[in-house]
């Protein structure tokens, strides 16, 4: 295991001296070069004249906060987005990457954090998906060649997985390895990995990092995206930092330290970034005891105070979302008790939960939260139409007045009053959903990844809204994979793993590393099906 910094004797694994390796890298012109690319989306300059060079044999880490432009850069390289300005050079030649297929053909393989495997197909079929070897002038799949080549690719990578196994039966980490095998088998020179370890535990992360180093030694240029600083220092040769769509800094990993990189990521005022107020009142709002569900939640007990933010920290698939779903009446509990304001409750549907003042802001805003066929006002009032009734009819005038009020209070772009919410930015959309639950008089708000895909300015506004809500006694269950955010915005944090709560800590007694370590050590991905929506 290599340390972040160069070993004492200056040597690197593989026996080459630092100087030699650097000279070799300097000599070779970069395989892939990004020059001054810019890309804007409505309301946000996602990339602003960013330049990067990816060298053969080098692991180049790109760090930055959510919304800093990392994903946009990845998508520009993989042909999903077309930058408005600047150029991308592959082996010195300016190329245009109009779509992902061309990017792959040009040798840029991208591994997204959401895997692109087909669960019902075998490992071999997935590796060769879309370019099956064929016989009989391309009409019949050559299964033998496919299998042989798969075995070869997997062996080269030291992955011990049977190519005939169906992907569905593999763990998250194994699937990630298959994804890499797929990318490698296409003979790509550039490998872009977007948060490859987001769903992995520490042991699997190490295995993946070994593999990435091996690929680098074979001469591939690797762009490694992550927001986990410790991890980046373990693996990267070079680190570039994106902030608000601009390149905030770039340098050799051994010449940088964690503090300087974090400062570049967050900018000057870190405290301003998380304007946390502590509003916990001495009044228990929610008590959960021994809660179990069919989705695998086992014997979960915790309580939340009025005005408190209780954070749920854990890996994807650890059970955070399942606990939330059970509280909200989506999944039926099989055991245990839930008390709200001292009253025992048992919600069979979200309708009942909402009636009792529980609300859920789902992780996947577009799939589970927004009505794109509605404008802002209809989106806000939908969960509490009873409040608009004038006799049996909806008072549309009152709906508009209430909505304008919320638009003003939460500083939502007024575009959303007259037009579909699909024209709003992620942050504004999230605020519309928050307004929906304010309008429904929620007392317990479950926020599942509330700042995912929300740009920095709007994120701070979401934090401020959290403060305002807790100030009036609303309790919040905060589920977030953004650990700095979770640590800063929660009053207490429950560490969730394997569908259980391991322990609950006051948030000031927990560090990011400790949280990650606890959450991942007991984490066995692939056990049971993850059930997130």
């Amino acid at each position: 295991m290599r340390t972040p910094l160069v070993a004492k004797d200056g040597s690197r694994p593989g026996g080459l001296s630092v100087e030699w390796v650097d000279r070799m890298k300097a000599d070779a012109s970069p395989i892939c070069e990004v020059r001054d690319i810019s890309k804007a989306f409505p309301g946000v300059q996602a990339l602003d004249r960013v330049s990067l060079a990816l060298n053969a044999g080098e692991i180049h880490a790109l760090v930055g906060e959510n919304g800093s432009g990392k994903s946009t850069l990845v998508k520009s390289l993989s042909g999903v987005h077309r930058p408005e300005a600047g150029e991308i050079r592959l082996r010195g030649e300016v190329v245009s990457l109009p779509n992902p297929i061309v990017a792959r053909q040009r040798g840029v393989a991208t591994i997204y954090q959401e895997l692109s495997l087909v669960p019902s197909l075998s490992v071999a079929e997935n590796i060769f998906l879309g370019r099956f070897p064929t016989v009989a002038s391309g009409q019949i799949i050559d299964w033998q060649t496919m299998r042989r080549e798969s075995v070869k690719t997997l062996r080269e990578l030291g992955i011990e997985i049977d190519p005939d196994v169906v992907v569905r039966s593999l763990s998250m980490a194994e699937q990630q390895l298959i994804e890499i095998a797929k990318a490698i088998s296409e003979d790509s020179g550039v490998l872009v990995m977007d948060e490859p370890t987001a769903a992995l535990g520490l042991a699997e992360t190490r295995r993946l990092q070994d593999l990435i180093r091996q690929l680098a030694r074979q001469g591939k240029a690797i762009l490694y995206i992550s927001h986990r600083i410790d991890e980046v220092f373990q693996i990267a040769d070079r680190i570039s930092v994106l902030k608000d769509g601009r390149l905030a800094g770039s340098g050799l990993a051994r010449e940088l330290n964690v503090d300087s990189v974090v400062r570049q990521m967050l900018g000057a005022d870190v405290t301003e970034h998380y304007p946390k107020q502590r509003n916990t009142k001495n009044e228990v709002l929610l008590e959960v005891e021994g809660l179990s569900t069919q989705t695998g939640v086992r014997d979960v007990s915790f309580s939340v105070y009025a005005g408190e933010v209780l954070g749920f920290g854990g890996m994807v698939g650890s059970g955070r979302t399942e606990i939330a779903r059970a509280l909200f009446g989506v999944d039926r509990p099989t055991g245990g008790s839930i008390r709200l304001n001292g009253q025992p409750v048992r919600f069979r549907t979200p309708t009942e939960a909402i009636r009792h003042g529980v609300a859920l802001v789902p992780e996947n805003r577009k799939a589970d939260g927004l009505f794109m066929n509605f404008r802002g006002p209809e989106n806000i009032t939908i969960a509490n139409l009873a409040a608009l009734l004038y006799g049996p009819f909806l008072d549309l005038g009152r709906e508009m007045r209430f909505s304008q009020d919320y638009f003003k209070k939460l500083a939502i772009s007024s575009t959303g009053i007259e037009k579909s919410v699909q024209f709003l930015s992620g942050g504004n959309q999230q605020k519309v959903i928050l307004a929906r639950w304010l309008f429904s008089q929620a007392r317990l708000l479950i926020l599942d990844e509330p700042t995912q895909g929300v740009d920095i300015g709007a994120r701070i506004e979401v934090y401020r809204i959290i403060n305002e809500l807790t100030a009036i006694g609303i309790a919040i269950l905060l589920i977030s994979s953004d650990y700095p955010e979770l640590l800063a915005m929660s009053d207490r944090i429950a560490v969730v793993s394997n569908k259980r709560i391991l322990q609950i800590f006051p948030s000031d007694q927990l560090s990011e590393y400790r949280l990650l370590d606890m959450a991942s050590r007991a984490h066995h991905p692939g056990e049971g099906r993850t059930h997130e929506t």
Partner: protein
Amino acid sequence: MRPRRSPLSRIPVMGPIISLFVVSVAVTISTDRFLLLDNLNNVALQASIVAIVAVGSTLVILTGGIDLSPGSAIALLTMIMASLIKFEGMSVPSAIVIVLIMSVVMGAINGFLSSYGRIPSFIVTLATLSIFRGVAFLFNAGSPIFSVSTSLEPWFYGQLFGIALPLFYVLITYGLAWGFLKYTPIGRRIYAIGGNESAARLSGINVHQTRLIAFIIAGLTAGIGSILMTARLNSGSPNYGVGTELQAIGAAVVGGASLAGGYGHIVASMIGAAIIVVVQNGLNLNAVQTSWQNITLGAIIVLAVFMDMWRADFGRLIGRAWRRWAGRRVAVSEQDADDT
């Protein structure tokens, strides 16, 4: 209620009105008989039944479902009505009440199976399309019932203030449907479950109940259609209503309703019904064979869907694809700048 579909049409029903005008001009050019008062009257009477059935079809389409059964339901209900009056000696108003109750029951069957029963509405109503017509043939040994009652025809051919009664039926039905969709919680929820069923459920909407109500209303409008049909022809027949479901769905789609659900204006469906009937009338007047009329109707529906897709903001299509994709693979996602 719904966002504007096209920058050209500030009024949601402007597109269909323009289409109706264009189609009418084309038919007028093709034949000098279109504008004759008798013919226009005939067109209006014909369109009235399609337009009323289209109310139910539109509601179901708004929820993201489809109802293929109203044509068969009409056949069965005309047989029930004709039997009640002619063989059981029932008065016309009583028979109307019973037919309306039966139509609600039939709509509820569709609705229950496709909501609480969790069978896709396409399958459910494809089955009841066959079942309802099959049951219709059980009446009167499968023969039509003619000359039902002399007191029946005024219900269809009667006039009020010199205007044909069916026109009032249409206006009243659409007025109620418009108010229902715009000003009642259930109407709002119909749009919501069609727009995003998952979000609707998580917003506390009883999705099954809402869908059931849409189907019950669809049954009811088919019932009204069947009463008009019986009165118009003074007969009941198991062969009535063939293709009515297609005309009604066509009316909704030509009016701009999205088959994916959530988008559509009820008044536009009325104009859609007029467009479809005017086209058929034009083909009739030009002595085009029935086979070609059927082909044309199918082609119009495909064309309307194409136009809808072409007009529709690509964001919606992308959004739908994204949802499908993201629904399958959920990971801790950092962002996706499309969102920001």
